[in-house]
């Protein structure tokens, strides 16, 4: 296994200390509201989001970010970053990506494996309010991880976090969680390939059910998660 792949495993691991485990992205409300009650409805909710909000917006945007980091087009990085922030349709979804982006930038700054690479630290520091995919792709670029490997890993890390949230809030057993990861993981290679080539005019961040869930979560009485 190449060093680039080892770095990719580190970047995609739930041990990455950016607080991902504190966010459910509306799933906690979906469970509260009775939309997600078991393994099948968790599969429908998480799979629905992976095929839409992730595969048709966040992942293609992350693919563009990685490409423009690689190309040295930092002005375009900054534009994609602000577009991503503006595309977060509820306060908690925006706060989530801003906090995780901030934490990842701080982490990278403290990692010699990143910090000591020429230039990258300064380029990332120049981005105002970096969103999570912006910081994540900066690391992927610095560590020379090819897009065809980075994108499936990005989707996988998101999926794993959503399934962990489902295990807590539905709740589901560990075996059900593994079945969900295996079933939904099947779709990742194809979704990642599509994300790599989807033209910007076709990106779609339309997931009204997620927007409703996330806004309802803001006023949910009892909650474990920050989104």
């Amino acid at each position, binding site marked *: 296994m190449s060093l680039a792949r080892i770095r990719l495993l580190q970047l995609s691991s739930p041990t990455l200390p950016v607080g991902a485990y504190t966010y459910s992205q*509306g799933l906690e409300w*979906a469970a509260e509201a009775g*939309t*997600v009650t078991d393994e099948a*409805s968790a599969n*429908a*909710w998480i799979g*629905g*989001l992976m*095929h*839409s*909000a992730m595969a*048709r*917006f966040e992942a293609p945007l992350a693919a563009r970010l990685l490409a423009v980091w690689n190309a040295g087009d930092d002005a375009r990085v900054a534009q994609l970053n*602000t*577009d991503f*922030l*503006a*595309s*977060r*349709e*509820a*306060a908690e979804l*925006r706060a989530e990506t801003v906090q995780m982006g901030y934490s990842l930038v701080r982490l990278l700054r403290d990692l010699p494996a990143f910090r000591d690479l020429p230039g990258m630290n300064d380029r990332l520091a120049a981005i105002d309010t970096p969103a999570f995919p912006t910081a994540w792709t900066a690391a992927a670029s610095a560590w020379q991880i090819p897009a065809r490997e980075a994108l499936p890993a990005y989707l996988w890390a998101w999926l794993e976090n959503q399934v962990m949230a489902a295990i807590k809030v539905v709740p589901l057993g560990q075996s059900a969680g593994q079945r969900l990861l295996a079933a939904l993981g099947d779709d990742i290679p194809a979704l990642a390939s599509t994300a790599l080539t989807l033209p910007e005019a*076709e*990106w*779609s*961040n*339309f*997931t*009204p*059910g*997620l*927007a*409703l*869930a*996330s*806004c*309802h979560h*803001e*006023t949910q009485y009892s909650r474990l998660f920050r989104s």
Partner: protein
Amino acid sequence: MNAPLPRIDLPPDTAAPAWQARLSLAFAQRDARTVLTRREHLGPLRLQKALYPEGEAICHGIVLHPPAGIAGGDQLSIEVEVGTGAHALLTTPGAGKWYRSNGADGRLTQHLSVAAGGVLEWLPQENIVFDRAQAHMDTTVRLSTGATLIAMDMTALGRHGSGERFDAGTLAQTLRVECDGRPLWLEQIRLHGSDPLLHAACGLAGRPVFGSLIAIGNGLDDALLAACRALPVTHGDGVITRLPELLVARYVGARCEAGRAWFSQLWQLLRPALTGRAAQTPRIWNT
């Protein structure tokens, strides 16, 4: 008045003539008055005359779309510029209808801009996207710091009154709002008639109507957010969130009327808070 020509839902092989239409408006402040300083039109897009139902400071306008609706091949563009200190309220006389397409895209491109101290209330009635329509709506709003915007949009997929569903066709709808070049809001909707999102829980969950109301300006605070949240939605689901520099209300449901009634109530709270003006429902909404 333009005598509206009836525009019927043509079978797909009928070659209907396509509209090319453009409307360009500018509003400016002259002393205490908002005046219409530009009113150019090409084709069947028109501004019904400038009205002052609440005094000379605020200019109300009704934008008339082409006779009855938009078909495949139609290309419409609307530009609105609101200058420093000017205040314009624009609406439409009825639902915008997007007809079943003969294969070509129908396209509406809107550019709205508001200068510092200017106010734009952009309150069109809903768009009804017929089954097999190919509807492209692209709206860009450019604000300067200190501008105020209250904008709503609502879309119904299919004529649910007659039991029609959106089983085939395309809806591509983009709303981008920027302030001094910084994007504040970006919604990019790409939906196809067979899209799983029409039925998915994270999508529309079978509900054909969705819309959003966006408010930007001085006076957005947590008290206003709480007051807005206290307004009930009678049918469907409505939520409100506050993002940096804007407040967003979103409706998803089965009926345009319920969404519009809720947006109207929200507007009656937001308008005085953001503009210092009491809200009187535009008469056109009641017709």
